[in-house]
């Protein structure tokens, strides 16, 4: 199994979500992060003080998938999140040794199958 971590623009989240749902990926964990990369700094002014915002708001998605789903998931995210401007973000792939579904104690690929879909893990 793999853990896919994607850092994307917040405004692209709806697109990415739809793209993931279309290919059948519904297990997602999201968080709000700040990213620094090639984007220009934003300047703010408060009274006599200048403030540089070197970090931009991003959304991080963490998705555990079975090997079989890896490529299509990466592709889905990557095309749905692209604007073509600097700052679109990155996708990281790591290997995952074990997954446990807390509710049932199920292990590994079984744990990745959503409720009521006794299909092959994705």
């Amino acid at each position, binding site marked *: 199994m793999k853990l896919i971590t994607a850092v994307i623009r*917040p405004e692209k*989240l*709806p697109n990415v*979500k*739809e793209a993931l*749902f*279309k290919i*059948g*990926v*519904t297990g997602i964990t*999201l968080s*709000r992060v700040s990213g620094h990369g090639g984007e220009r700094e934003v300047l703010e002014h408060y009274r006599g003080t200048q403030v540089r915002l070197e970090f931009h708001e991003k*959304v991080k998605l963490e998705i555990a998938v079975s090997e079989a789903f890896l490529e299509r998931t990466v592709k889905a995210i990557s095309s749905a999140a692209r604007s073509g401007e600097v700052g679109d973000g990155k996708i990281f792939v790591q290997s995952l040794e074990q997954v446990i579904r807390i509710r049932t104690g199920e292990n590994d690929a079984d744990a990745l199958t*959503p*409720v*009521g*879909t006794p*299909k092959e893990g994705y």
Partner: protein
Amino acid sequence: MKALKLALPLGLLTLMGGALAQTAAAAPVIDKGDTAFMLIASALVLLMTPGLAFFYGGLARAKTVLNTMMMSFIAIGVVALLWPLIGYSIAFGDLKNAFFGGFDKVALSGLTAGSIWNNGGVIQTTIPTFVFMIFQMMFAVITPALISGALIDRMKFGSYILFIGLWSVLIYAPLAHWVWSANGWLFARGVLDFAGGTVVHIAAGISALVAVLILGPRSSGSQRAAVPHNIPFVLLGAALLWFGWFGFNAGSELAADGVAGLAFINTAIAPGVAMLAWLLCEVVRGQRPSAVGAATGAVVGLVAITPACAYVGPVASMAIGAIAAVCSFLVVQLKHRLAADDALDVFACHGVGGIVGAILTGVFADSRVSGLTAAKGLIDGNPAQIVTQLVGVGVTILFCAVGTATLMFIIKAVMGVRVSAQEESMGLDVSSHAEDGYNNGDFGYATNGKSGSIDSPVILSANAND
């Protein structure tokens, strides 16, 4: 409004403060200055209820902030409907008996813009009856809202609405009649309560305590996490309460005169000193002086000075603020020993503060400062007043405890009073109001009310659907 009414038992119809010595013979006229004052005072008292919403809402958790605030706001709606229709008539209607005012003023029938309030001909004021009615309505709004602080985090919103509606008509309105109407029996008994220590604060504090006993405690999860989610909101609420309280206390004189001035200065002094006293208690106990403590202390000081504000001098006012703060602080420390889960300490603040204030009114009332000869306490040579005050306190406690218990039991039987455990753990904002107090907007979808439309999330495969 006690300054006016006190005149009565002594058979005096002349009023305090200046140009008001009309006899019954002279046609009563509206005084523009008094009317201006009472109009603005009424607006100030209205603002107290949103102030309370912030005071309570800031103390609540983020996931129940809206429910907590709505419990105050909805009181404006409910009482704005019921008070003109029936509550006012029960409290200030015809003077046939000492226990309630009757039905002649139902739906404010007969009142016009030209009516001047005279409490059935017994007391002549110089303000329009409409203005008196609305000033009183603002009191009737905030009193049940005060109770809500005890009930947050688990009460059904519908049951709460029913409860405060019935409470305001069946408990508050009669009590207001007893204490403030010219023929109310506690009024006749000489109980001193200038601006509502008994009718408002003891009534709310006791009712809160009784109501939570029937409602039951919060789940241990929500109790554990019960840390104020936004203390600046608590301070905002305290500030708006304090600001409005000037209308509440000084306005109870129903005139812009020196007695209103005395009521006003005590409404600034007592809570200021109570704030200091509360912080000192914290330091003495080895804690840090806290912002929640400052806000709480100020509110307790405001509560305690309410019955006394026009009767006592400024130094007595400092004493009342300090004593009430210490008493209330001690009760708050002990609250975990109580069976009742009074979430935001309504009893400890309003109940205890109100009782202390009512009794100390009997101690410190001083006609040499106020000029109100009927209002003498211990230090002015009238120790018996303390007994009278205790009677007032006792009757209020009894009536409110029995009345609230009855209402809560009936509502519990008819429709239930608690949300489910699951709704409680979700937080009442989402479960009772389908709203979140704070949104960052990125993770949710607005779907324009058209489910399945082109704007809504496209969900294609079956297994993606739930």
